[in-house]
Protein backbone atom coordinates (compact mmCIF):
# COMPACT_ATOMS: atom_id res chain seq x y z
CA UNK A 1 0.00 0.00 0.00
CA UNK A 2 1.31 3.44 -0.92
CA UNK A 3 0.31 6.86 0.35
CA UNK A 4 0.72 9.81 -2.05
CA UNK A 5 -0.15 13.49 -1.68
CA UNK A 6 -0.40 16.21 -4.29
CA UNK A 7 -1.23 19.94 -4.20
CA UNK A 8 -2.55 22.02 -7.09
CA UNK A 9 -3.39 25.73 -7.31
CA UNK A 10 -7.13 26.51 -7.38
CA UNK A 11 -9.22 29.46 -8.54
CA UNK A 12 -12.52 29.05 -6.72
CA UNK A 13 -13.95 27.74 -3.50
CA UNK A 14 -15.84 24.44 -3.40
CA UNK A 15 -19.01 24.36 -1.31
CA UNK A 16 -20.44 20.89 -1.85
CA UNK A 17 -19.09 17.40 -1.47
CA UNK A 18 -19.46 14.15 -3.33
CA UNK A 19 -18.65 10.48 -2.86
CA UNK A 20 -18.38 8.11 -5.83
CA UNK A 21 -17.00 4.67 -6.53
CA UNK A 22 -16.09 1.67 -4.45
CA UNK A 23 -12.80 0.15 -3.28
CA UNK A 24 -13.36 -2.95 -5.39
CA UNK A 25 -11.08 -4.76 -7.81
CA UNK A 26 -9.97 -2.37 -10.59
CA UNK A 27 -12.00 0.44 -9.08
CA UNK A 28 -11.54 3.25 -6.60
CA UNK A 29 -13.44 5.53 -4.27
CA UNK A 30 -13.28 9.32 -4.50
CA UNK A 31 -14.29 11.66 -1.68
CA UNK A 32 -14.44 15.25 -2.84
CA UNK A 33 -15.08 17.97 -0.26
CA UNK A 34 -14.22 21.64 0.32
CA UNK A 35 -10.55 22.05 1.19
CA UNK A 36 -10.07 22.94 4.84
CA UNK A 37 -8.42 26.27 4.03
CA UNK A 38 -10.78 27.28 1.22
CA UNK A 39 -13.56 29.74 1.78
CA UNK A 40 -11.73 31.42 4.66
CA UNK A 41 -10.73 34.24 2.34
CA UNK A 42 -14.09 34.30 0.55
CA UNK A 43 -12.40 33.86 -2.80
CA UNK A 44 -10.88 37.32 -2.73
CA UNK A 45 -7.37 35.95 -2.66
CA UNK A 46 -7.55 33.30 -5.34
CA UNK A 47 -3.79 32.87 -5.49
CA UNK A 48 -3.81 31.43 -1.98
CA UNK A 49 -6.31 28.70 -2.86
CA UNK A 50 -5.11 25.15 -3.13
CA UNK A 51 -6.55 21.76 -3.97
CA UNK A 52 -5.22 18.84 -1.94
CA UNK A 53 -5.18 15.26 -3.20
CA UNK A 54 -4.48 12.29 -0.98
CA UNK A 55 -4.13 8.90 -2.65
CA UNK A 56 -4.04 5.56 -0.90
CA UNK A 57 -3.40 2.84 -3.43
CA UNK A 58 -2.97 -0.91 -3.17
CA UNK A 59 -0.45 -0.88 -6.03
CA UNK A 60 3.03 0.43 -5.23
CA UNK A 61 5.42 2.22 -7.56
CA UNK A 62 3.03 4.16 -9.78
CA UNK A 63 3.48 7.64 -8.27
CA UNK A 64 4.53 9.10 -11.64
CA UNK A 65 1.36 7.75 -13.32
CA UNK A 66 -0.81 9.24 -10.57
CA UNK A 67 0.94 12.58 -11.09
CA UNK A 68 0.26 12.44 -14.85
CA UNK A 69 -3.42 11.62 -14.39
CA UNK A 70 -3.89 14.33 -11.76
CA UNK A 71 -1.88 16.90 -13.75
CA UNK A 72 -4.24 16.38 -16.65
CA UNK A 73 -7.35 16.48 -14.40
CA UNK A 74 -6.26 19.79 -12.90
CA UNK A 75 -5.78 21.40 -16.30
CA UNK A 76 -9.59 21.41 -16.45
CA UNK A 77 -10.59 21.60 -12.81
CA UNK A 78 -9.90 24.66 -10.69
CA UNK A 79 -11.86 23.99 -7.47
CA UNK A 80 -10.19 24.25 -4.07
CA UNK A 81 -11.17 20.73 -3.14
CA UNK A 82 -9.89 18.15 -0.74
CA UNK A 83 -9.84 14.97 -2.84
CA UNK A 84 -9.28 11.65 -1.10
CA UNK A 85 -8.78 8.58 -3.24
CA UNK A 86 -8.88 4.99 -2.02
CA UNK A 87 -7.66 2.89 -4.91
CA UNK A 88 -7.81 -0.85 -5.47
CA UNK A 89 -5.87 -1.16 -8.71
CA UNK A 90 -7.88 1.11 -11.01
CA UNK A 91 -6.39 1.89 -14.42
CA UNK A 92 -5.64 5.56 -15.29
CA UNK A 93 -8.76 5.68 -17.47
CA UNK A 94 -10.98 4.56 -14.60
CA UNK A 95 -9.32 7.06 -12.27
CA UNK A 96 -10.01 9.90 -14.72
CA UNK A 97 -13.64 8.82 -15.13
CA UNK A 98 -14.21 8.59 -11.37
CA UNK A 99 -12.67 12.04 -10.85
CA UNK A 100 -14.96 13.50 -13.52
CA UNK A 101 -17.93 11.70 -11.94
CA UNK A 102 -17.06 13.14 -8.51
CA UNK A 103 -16.86 16.67 -9.93
CA UNK A 104 -20.19 16.23 -11.71
CA UNK A 105 -21.85 14.91 -8.55
CA UNK A 106 -20.42 17.75 -6.45
CA UNK A 107 -21.53 20.43 -8.93
CA UNK A 108 -25.04 19.02 -8.80
CA UNK A 109 -24.88 19.48 -5.05
CA UNK A 110 -25.48 15.78 -4.53
CA UNK A 111 -23.76 15.19 -1.22
CA UNK A 112 -25.69 12.09 -0.20
Amino acid sequence: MEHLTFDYPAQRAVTTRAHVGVVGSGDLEVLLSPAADSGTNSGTNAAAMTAHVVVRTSVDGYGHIWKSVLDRFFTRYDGAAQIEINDFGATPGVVALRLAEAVEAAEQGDDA
Partner: protein
Amino acid sequence: MSALATPHAAPLLRESFIELPARERARSLLDAGSFRELLGPFDRIESPWLPLQGVVCQADDGCVIARGTIDGEPAVVAAIESAFQGGSIGEVSGSKIAAALELALRDCERGKIVRPVVLFETGGVRLQEANLGLAVIAEIQAAIVALRRHVPVVGVIAGMVGCFGGMSLAAALCSYLVMTRQGRLGMNGPEVIEQEAGIDELDASDRRRVWQLIGGEQRVASSLADQLVDDDAQAVRAAVQSAFGQGVPAAHRSEQVDTFLQRLARIDPASVTPASMREAFSEQFAHSQPRKEQA
Protein backbone atom coordinates in the same frame (compact mmCIF):
# COMPACT_ATOMS: atom_id res chain seq x y z
CA MET B 1 -47.74 1.77 -4.73
CA SER B 2 -46.13 5.01 -5.74
CA ALA B 3 -43.74 4.96 -8.65
CA LEU B 4 -40.01 5.16 -8.00
CA ALA B 5 -38.87 8.72 -8.44
CA THR B 6 -35.59 7.77 -10.05
CA PRO B 7 -33.98 10.41 -12.23
CA HIS B 8 -33.83 8.08 -15.24
CA ALA B 9 -35.36 9.79 -18.22
CA ALA B 10 -35.29 6.76 -20.49
CA PRO B 11 -38.02 4.22 -19.84
CA LEU B 12 -36.53 1.05 -18.37
CA LEU B 13 -38.39 -2.22 -18.52
CA ARG B 14 -36.50 -3.38 -15.49
CA GLU B 15 -33.81 -1.94 -13.28
CA SER B 16 -31.40 -4.58 -12.06
CA PHE B 17 -31.11 -4.76 -8.27
CA ILE B 18 -27.96 -6.89 -8.40
CA GLU B 19 -26.07 -4.29 -10.40
CA LEU B 20 -26.78 -1.54 -7.85
CA PRO B 21 -24.06 -0.71 -5.33
CA ALA B 22 -25.01 -0.98 -1.66
CA ARG B 23 -25.98 2.67 -1.23
CA GLU B 24 -28.30 2.60 -4.25
CA ARG B 25 -29.81 -0.71 -3.13
CA ALA B 26 -30.72 0.86 0.21
CA ARG B 27 -32.09 3.93 -1.54
CA SER B 28 -34.20 1.82 -3.90
CA LEU B 29 -35.89 -0.05 -1.03
CA LEU B 30 -36.85 3.09 0.86
CA ASP B 31 -39.73 5.36 -0.11
CA ALA B 32 -38.63 7.93 -2.67
CA GLY B 33 -36.84 10.87 -1.11
CA SER B 34 -36.75 9.38 2.39
CA PHE B 35 -33.18 8.00 2.23
CA ARG B 36 -30.91 9.41 4.95
CA GLU B 37 -27.53 7.81 5.56
CA LEU B 38 -26.04 7.34 9.02
CA LEU B 39 -22.25 7.14 9.43
CA GLY B 40 -21.64 7.78 5.75
CA PRO B 41 -18.30 7.90 3.96
CA PHE B 42 -17.55 11.46 5.10
CA ASP B 43 -17.68 10.32 8.72
CA ARG B 44 -14.64 8.24 7.77
CA ILE B 45 -15.15 5.42 10.21
CA GLU B 46 -12.78 2.94 8.61
CA SER B 47 -11.29 -0.34 9.61
CA PRO B 48 -8.30 0.24 11.91
CA TRP B 49 -6.96 -3.22 11.04
CA LEU B 50 -6.74 -3.27 7.25
CA PRO B 51 -3.96 -0.63 6.84
CA LEU B 52 -1.78 -2.60 9.28
CA GLN B 53 -2.00 -5.45 6.78
CA GLY B 54 -1.40 -3.30 3.72
CA VAL B 55 -5.03 -3.28 2.59
CA VAL B 56 -6.68 -0.06 1.41
CA CYS B 57 -9.74 0.99 3.44
CA GLN B 58 -13.12 2.14 2.22
CA ALA B 59 -14.48 5.25 3.91
CA ASP B 60 -17.71 3.50 4.96
CA ASP B 61 -16.02 0.10 5.56
CA GLY B 62 -18.31 -1.45 2.97
CA CYS B 63 -21.51 -1.02 4.92
CA VAL B 64 -24.30 1.50 4.33
CA ILE B 65 -26.79 2.25 7.10
CA ALA B 66 -29.82 4.22 5.94
CA ARG B 67 -32.91 5.51 7.69
CA GLY B 68 -36.08 6.30 5.81
CA THR B 69 -39.56 4.94 5.40
CA ILE B 70 -40.98 1.78 3.82
CA ASP B 71 -44.65 2.09 2.89
CA GLY B 72 -44.67 5.23 5.02
CA GLU B 73 -43.43 3.42 8.15
CA PRO B 74 -40.06 4.26 9.74
CA ALA B 75 -37.37 1.87 8.56
CA VAL B 76 -33.66 1.19 8.76
CA VAL B 77 -31.72 -0.58 6.02
CA ALA B 78 -28.26 -2.11 6.46
CA ALA B 79 -26.70 -2.80 3.06
CA ILE B 80 -23.42 -4.63 2.58
CA GLU B 81 -21.24 -3.59 -0.37
CA SER B 82 -20.12 -6.80 -2.06
CA ALA B 83 -17.38 -5.16 -4.15
CA PHE B 84 -15.34 -4.15 -1.10
CA GLN B 85 -13.47 -7.15 0.33
CA GLY B 86 -16.20 -9.54 -0.83
CA GLY B 87 -18.76 -7.97 1.49
CA SER B 88 -16.85 -9.38 4.43
CA ILE B 89 -17.83 -8.38 7.95
CA GLY B 90 -15.13 -6.46 9.78
CA GLU B 91 -15.22 -4.90 13.21
CA VAL B 92 -16.53 -1.58 11.89
CA SER B 93 -18.93 -2.75 9.17
CA GLY B 94 -20.40 -5.38 11.49
CA SER B 95 -20.70 -2.94 14.38
CA LYS B 96 -22.60 -0.56 12.13
CA ILE B 97 -25.16 -3.28 11.35
CA ALA B 98 -25.40 -4.43 14.97
CA ALA B 99 -25.78 -0.86 16.26
CA ALA B 100 -28.44 -0.05 13.66
CA LEU B 101 -30.45 -3.11 14.72
CA GLU B 102 -29.93 -2.36 18.43
CA LEU B 103 -31.14 1.22 17.97
CA ALA B 104 -34.18 -0.09 16.11
CA LEU B 105 -34.76 -2.49 19.02
CA ARG B 106 -34.62 0.38 21.51
CA ASP B 107 -37.19 2.29 19.47
CA CYS B 108 -39.43 -0.79 19.23
CA GLU B 109 -39.24 -1.36 22.99
CA ARG B 110 -40.48 2.20 23.48
CA GLY B 111 -43.40 1.47 21.22
CA LYS B 112 -42.02 3.17 18.11
CA ILE B 113 -41.80 0.44 15.49
CA VAL B 114 -38.87 0.66 13.08
CA ARG B 115 -38.81 -1.78 10.17
CA PRO B 116 -35.36 -3.41 9.83
CA VAL B 117 -34.00 -4.71 6.53
CA VAL B 118 -30.59 -6.34 6.06
CA LEU B 119 -29.16 -6.70 2.56
CA PHE B 120 -26.86 -9.70 2.89
CA GLU B 121 -24.10 -9.78 0.31
CA THR B 122 -21.23 -11.32 2.16
CA GLY B 123 -18.75 -14.14 2.33
CA GLY B 124 -18.97 -13.93 6.13
CA VAL B 125 -16.35 -12.73 8.56
CA ARG B 126 -13.44 -10.63 7.22
CA LEU B 127 -10.47 -12.90 7.79
CA GLN B 128 -8.10 -9.95 8.39
CA GLU B 129 -10.21 -9.02 11.42
CA ALA B 130 -10.89 -12.56 12.56
CA ASN B 131 -12.26 -12.70 16.09
CA LEU B 132 -13.52 -9.11 16.13
CA GLY B 133 -15.59 -9.85 13.04
CA LEU B 134 -16.92 -13.06 14.56
CA ALA B 135 -17.81 -11.30 17.81
CA VAL B 136 -19.78 -8.64 16.02
CA ILE B 137 -21.64 -11.23 13.91
CA ALA B 138 -22.81 -12.70 17.22
CA GLU B 139 -24.05 -9.24 18.19
CA ILE B 140 -25.92 -8.96 14.89
CA GLN B 141 -27.56 -12.33 15.48
CA ALA B 142 -28.55 -11.43 19.04
CA ALA B 143 -30.03 -8.16 17.82
CA ILE B 144 -32.08 -9.92 15.12
CA VAL B 145 -33.51 -12.40 17.64
CA ALA B 146 -34.41 -9.62 20.08
CA LEU B 147 -35.86 -7.40 17.37
CA ARG B 148 -38.02 -9.99 15.62
CA ARG B 149 -40.32 -10.23 18.63
CA HIS B 150 -41.49 -6.70 17.88
CA VAL B 151 -41.31 -6.40 14.11
CA PRO B 152 -40.41 -8.69 11.21
CA VAL B 153 -36.71 -8.59 10.37
CA VAL B 154 -36.45 -8.88 6.60
CA GLY B 155 -33.32 -10.16 4.86
CA VAL B 156 -32.56 -9.86 1.16
CA ILE B 157 -30.01 -12.03 -0.66
CA ALA B 158 -29.82 -10.72 -4.21
CA GLY B 159 -26.38 -11.89 -5.39
CA MET B 160 -23.95 -12.21 -6.94
CA VAL B 161 -21.76 -12.85 -3.91
CA GLY B 162 -24.49 -14.57 -1.92
CA CYS B 163 -24.56 -15.07 1.82
CA PHE B 164 -22.15 -17.41 3.59
CA GLY B 165 -20.42 -18.15 6.86
CA GLY B 166 -21.67 -16.66 10.10
CA MET B 167 -23.84 -14.24 8.21
CA SER B 168 -25.78 -17.15 6.68
CA LEU B 169 -26.84 -17.96 10.24
CA ALA B 170 -27.84 -14.33 10.74
CA ALA B 171 -29.89 -14.54 7.53
CA ALA B 172 -31.54 -17.74 8.75
CA LEU B 173 -32.65 -15.93 11.92
CA CYS B 174 -34.56 -13.32 9.91
CA SER B 175 -38.36 -13.41 9.92
CA TYR B 176 -38.51 -13.39 6.13
CA LEU B 177 -35.87 -13.94 3.48
CA VAL B 178 -36.21 -12.55 -0.03
CA MET B 179 -33.94 -14.11 -2.67
CA THR B 180 -33.31 -13.90 -6.38
CA ARG B 181 -32.40 -16.90 -8.54
CA GLN B 182 -28.88 -15.48 -8.64
CA GLY B 183 -28.62 -15.33 -4.84
CA ARG B 184 -27.00 -18.15 -2.88
CA LEU B 185 -27.31 -19.06 0.77
CA GLY B 186 -25.12 -21.56 2.59
CA MET B 187 -22.78 -22.05 5.51
CA ASN B 188 -19.71 -22.95 3.45
CA GLY B 189 -19.16 -21.65 -0.05
CA PRO B 190 -18.66 -24.18 -2.86
CA GLU B 191 -14.90 -23.54 -3.12
CA VAL B 192 -14.50 -24.27 0.58
CA ILE B 193 -16.49 -27.49 0.29
CA GLU B 194 -14.42 -28.65 -2.67
CA GLN B 195 -11.19 -27.79 -0.88
CA GLU B 196 -12.12 -29.48 2.38
CA ALA B 197 -14.21 -32.46 1.22
CA GLY B 198 -12.78 -33.10 -2.23
CA ILE B 199 -13.99 -32.64 -5.77
CA ASP B 200 -16.08 -35.82 -5.51
CA GLU B 201 -18.21 -34.06 -2.93
CA LEU B 202 -18.70 -30.91 -5.00
CA ASP B 203 -17.13 -29.51 -8.13
CA ALA B 204 -17.17 -25.80 -7.35
CA SER B 205 -16.72 -24.91 -11.03
CA ASP B 206 -20.04 -26.64 -11.85
CA ARG B 207 -22.18 -23.51 -11.56
CA ARG B 208 -25.40 -25.29 -12.49
CA ARG B 209 -24.86 -27.78 -9.69
CA VAL B 210 -23.92 -25.10 -7.17
CA TRP B 211 -27.10 -23.11 -7.85
CA GLN B 212 -29.21 -26.28 -7.79
CA LEU B 213 -27.93 -26.87 -4.26
CA ILE B 214 -27.86 -23.43 -2.66
CA GLY B 215 -29.43 -21.00 -5.16
CA GLY B 216 -32.43 -18.85 -4.38
CA GLU B 217 -34.89 -21.02 -6.28
CA GLN B 218 -33.85 -24.13 -4.33
CA ARG B 219 -33.85 -22.30 -0.99
CA VAL B 220 -37.38 -20.99 -1.52
CA ALA B 221 -38.62 -24.38 -2.82
CA SER B 222 -37.26 -26.05 0.30
CA SER B 223 -38.79 -23.44 2.64
CA LEU B 224 -35.46 -22.07 3.84
CA ALA B 225 -36.28 -18.73 2.21
CA ASP B 226 -39.68 -17.15 1.67
CA GLN B 227 -39.94 -15.19 -1.54
CA LEU B 228 -38.27 -15.68 -4.91
CA VAL B 229 -38.09 -12.48 -6.95
CA ASP B 230 -36.63 -11.45 -10.29
CA ASP B 231 -33.53 -9.29 -10.39
CA ASP B 232 -35.68 -6.17 -10.50
CA ALA B 233 -35.43 -3.28 -8.06
CA GLN B 234 -39.23 -2.82 -8.11
CA ALA B 235 -39.81 -6.52 -7.44
CA VAL B 236 -37.38 -6.61 -4.52
CA ARG B 237 -38.97 -3.48 -3.08
CA ALA B 238 -42.45 -4.97 -3.44
CA ALA B 239 -41.33 -8.22 -1.81
CA VAL B 240 -39.85 -6.37 1.18
CA GLN B 241 -43.05 -4.33 1.57
CA SER B 242 -45.24 -7.43 1.43
CA ALA B 243 -43.02 -9.19 4.00
CA PHE B 244 -43.62 -6.38 6.47
CA GLY B 245 -47.30 -6.53 5.59
CA GLN B 246 -47.44 -10.13 6.79
CA GLY B 247 -46.44 -9.16 10.32
CA VAL B 248 -44.38 -11.17 12.80
CA PRO B 249 -44.64 -14.93 12.07
CA ALA B 250 -46.23 -17.06 14.79
CA ALA B 251 -43.11 -19.19 14.86
CA HIS B 252 -39.81 -18.22 13.28
CA ARG B 253 -37.91 -20.87 11.33
CA SER B 254 -35.22 -21.08 13.99
CA GLU B 255 -37.91 -21.78 16.63
CA GLN B 256 -39.30 -24.76 14.71
CA VAL B 257 -36.61 -27.15 15.84
CA ASP B 258 -38.76 -30.30 15.82
CA THR B 259 -40.16 -29.59 12.38
CA PHE B 260 -36.72 -29.21 10.86
CA LEU B 261 -35.33 -32.23 12.73
CA GLN B 262 -38.17 -34.30 11.22
CA ARG B 263 -37.36 -32.97 7.77
CA LEU B 264 -33.67 -33.69 8.25
CA ALA B 265 -34.54 -37.24 9.31
CA ARG B 266 -36.18 -37.79 5.92
CA ILE B 267 -32.86 -37.04 4.19
CA ASP B 268 -30.50 -39.87 3.29
CA PRO B 269 -27.07 -38.18 3.02
CA ALA B 270 -25.86 -40.92 0.64
CA SER B 271 -28.57 -40.36 -1.94
CA VAL B 272 -29.82 -36.82 -1.38
CA THR B 273 -30.42 -34.76 -4.53
CA PRO B 274 -31.68 -31.21 -4.98
CA ALA B 275 -35.08 -32.69 -5.86
CA SER B 276 -35.30 -35.00 -2.84
CA MET B 277 -34.16 -32.15 -0.64
CA ARG B 278 -37.05 -30.02 -1.92
CA GLU B 279 -39.51 -32.83 -1.35
CA ALA B 280 -38.37 -33.45 2.21
CA PHE B 281 -38.28 -29.77 3.12
CA SER B 282 -41.40 -28.54 1.33
CA GLU B 283 -44.07 -27.11 3.61
CA GLN B 284 -46.81 -29.68 2.93
CA PHE B 285 -44.72 -32.43 4.51
CA ALA B 286 -44.43 -30.54 7.76
CA HIS B 287 -46.26 -32.54 10.43
CA SER B 288 -46.11 -30.10 13.30
CA GLN B 289 -47.70 -26.70 13.25
CA PRO B 290 -47.58 -25.06 9.87
CA ARG B 291 -46.01 -21.64 9.67
CA LYS B 292 -48.96 -19.32 10.17
CA GLU B 293 -48.74 -15.59 10.29
CA GLN B 294 -50.30 -13.47 12.99
CA ALA B 295 -53.15 -11.29 11.88
